[in-house]
């Protein structure tokens, strides 16, 4: 057991995967000697060598496309896109090739690749460095979208993502990279994909979230508990395919739902969650659903970022509002 941060957990999972499976290779900008701009790959190049951990030219489209070629050749490339805001050129390869290769060839060629990228705001980063566009990926058929929210889940989910026979995008909340230390057994055990994690149980309201917002939600739940409101906090963890059973069971129990994400509202993945509830658990709802998320604006530069990111206080307010119903 080691007390580690989320980014250290990512690194430990990568090291374990490199160790256990010679077909795993790591590629990306600055992942080599520099160890990645967030140090997620620190020491791996030194330990595993250039054939396993390789700096690429500055070519996001080709990085993703090359990974498809490697994966079709039975390697398991784990590629890093330095920031999610720079992932757009890779989308073509992800949507049109990686996510389709198995289906297009009826299983003849497959694409066991992982595309990692730090995402999200709250760290006073430069322009284009605070994006949270998981919803775009969660709409792509054939793709898995996984977002860890703690060191333990980062370790276990990343290992499972790498071992998965199909393509996974793995978005790491950079705000949590060093926010918290946790005991994690570095034993190579994966955590199940496609599974939500109930981070806190509660009978009154379901707070559904993922990524960095889990912290704000837990903080809000703590505060609400002081007022006798028991919020259940569910970390979806895998957005596609998502764990509808856990989601719906929670909402059926509580009858109330607040969804929290840091992506802008319209077209955010909160819509999917709300829709699913409105389809399959409407009868259980005693209050309207609430989404706590930024309006449809561009992540502001640091000076005004605080006005953008959802806070525990806002989550509390939304919960109190839905508690006033029914």
């Amino acid at each position, binding site marked *: 057991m080691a007390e580690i941060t989320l980014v250290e957990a990512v690194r430990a999972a990568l090291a374990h995967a490199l160790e256990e499976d010679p077909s795993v290779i790591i590629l990306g900008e600055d992942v080599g000697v520099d160890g990645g701009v967030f140090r997620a790959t620190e020491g791996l190049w030194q330990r595993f060598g250039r054939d396993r951990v390789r700096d690429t030219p500055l*070519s996001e489209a080709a990085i993703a496309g*090359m990974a498809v*070629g490697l994966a079709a050749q039975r390697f398991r490339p784990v590629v890093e896109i330095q920031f999610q805001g720079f992932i757009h050129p890779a989308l073509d390869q992800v949507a049109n090739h990686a996510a389709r290769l198995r289906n297009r060839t*009826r299983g003849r060629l497959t694409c066991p690749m992982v595309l990692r990228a730090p995402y999200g705001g709250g760290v006073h980063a430069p322009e284009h460095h605070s994006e949270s566009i998981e919803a775009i990926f969660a709409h792509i058929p054939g793709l898995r979208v996984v977002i860890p929210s703690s060191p333990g889940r980062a370790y276990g989910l990343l290992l499972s993502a790498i071992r998965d026979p199909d393509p996974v995008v793995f978005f790491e909340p950079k705000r949590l990279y060093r926010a918290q230390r946790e005991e994690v057994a570095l034993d190579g055990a994966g955590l199940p994909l*496609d599974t939500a994690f109930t981070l806190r149980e509660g009978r009154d309201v379901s707070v559904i979230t993922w990524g960095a917002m889990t912290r704000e939600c837990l903080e809000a739940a703590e505060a609400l508990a002081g007022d006798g409101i028991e919020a259940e906090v569910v970390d979806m963890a895998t957005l596609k395919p998502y764990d509808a059973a856990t989601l719906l069971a929670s909402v059926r129990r509580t009858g109330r739902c607040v969804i929290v994400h840091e992506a802008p509202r319209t077209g955010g993945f909160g819509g999917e969650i709300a829709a699913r509830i409105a389809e399959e658990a409407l009868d259980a709802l005693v209050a309207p659903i609430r989404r706590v998320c930024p309006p449809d604006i561009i992540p502001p530069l640091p000076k005004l970022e605080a006005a953008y990111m959802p806070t525990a206080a806002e989550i509390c307010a939304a919960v109190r509002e839905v508690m006033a119903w029914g």
Partner: protein
Amino acid sequence: MHGGKEDGEVGIQPCGDREGSDRYGIPFSRFLTPDGALSDAAPGFASDRGELAALYAGMLRTRAFDAKAVALQRTGRLGTYASSLGQEGVSVGLASAMRAEDVLIPSFREHGAQLWRGTRMEELLLYWGGDERGSDFAGPREDFPVCVPVGTQYPHAVGVAMAFTLRGEARCAVVVGGDGSTSRGDFHEALNMAGVWALPVVFLINNNQWAISVPREAQTAAATLAQKAIGAGLPGEQVDGCDVIAVRDAMERALARGRAGGGATVIECITYRLSDHTTADDATRYRDDTQVSPHWAEEPVTRLREHLVQAHGWTRQEEEELRAETHAAVEAAAQAYLDIAPQPVASIADYLFETLPPDLKAARDRVAEGGNG
């Protein structure tokens, strides 16, 4: 390094005294002239009657397959189809130089290469008929399926070649695209990556002079497409794509270089799209017959036949037998294609993941029962 300013325009220095396509040092090769004469400098295989007859048969088959596919489309039994009429020399030339263990990453117009490598005609028809099983061909199992988003195939070759290198295998990735595809960023990113890592890739550009209605000269100001290699530090060369011998020769050299650890090569094959872009296109909207017809005098099939007749006594009987065989094979394949039982409807979901997640499994089962997912 020189420290001064040139007189007059400073820019790229023309090299040597040659004009035009090889101004930047891009060699061009052709061994077989349009009238069927073979240069002395031709490679060894070009004097082997059997080899040439095989190349000829491959091109003839490609042309017959194309014609049949277009006919099937015209009669509503195939989807939109991209004919390779006039470009058979490229397809057959490139495939004939490859080894079975090499990997082909084709565009959507390399039927001839796919057939040469062992994909069956009925499989190709199945794909173009709108059935995913066509890309699950029994033939070269590691070859990529047809690539429709133009240019996106190039990075795949980088990955495939890197896999070969990592495993220490003497194999090459061969990726094919058109003149239009060279304007895509993916092309350059892939070239550059293959260059910096010295990977065994052959980038073959089938320059048929058109990207749908956009002619080659509206695609780029570069005098040759092969010179796009220079920016990636790669060797680039041009060949006459209507000369199957030159294509195969250039490919053989590039493949040998790749296998020997010498890295990637760009080969531009100059040919001409004699057909419409696809069966959905009407090329008369944007080009005149007068533009097209001179190119019929250069096309690769007749050219090689002329040479076979002139140099190897290819007989009318041989020709007729080959045509009859080819015709029969194509007809049989078309029939086989038409006879293939439809795939089960649920297969629209079956191959999304190795193991279907619950929601998708449920949707699949609803679809299988004829409902909406």
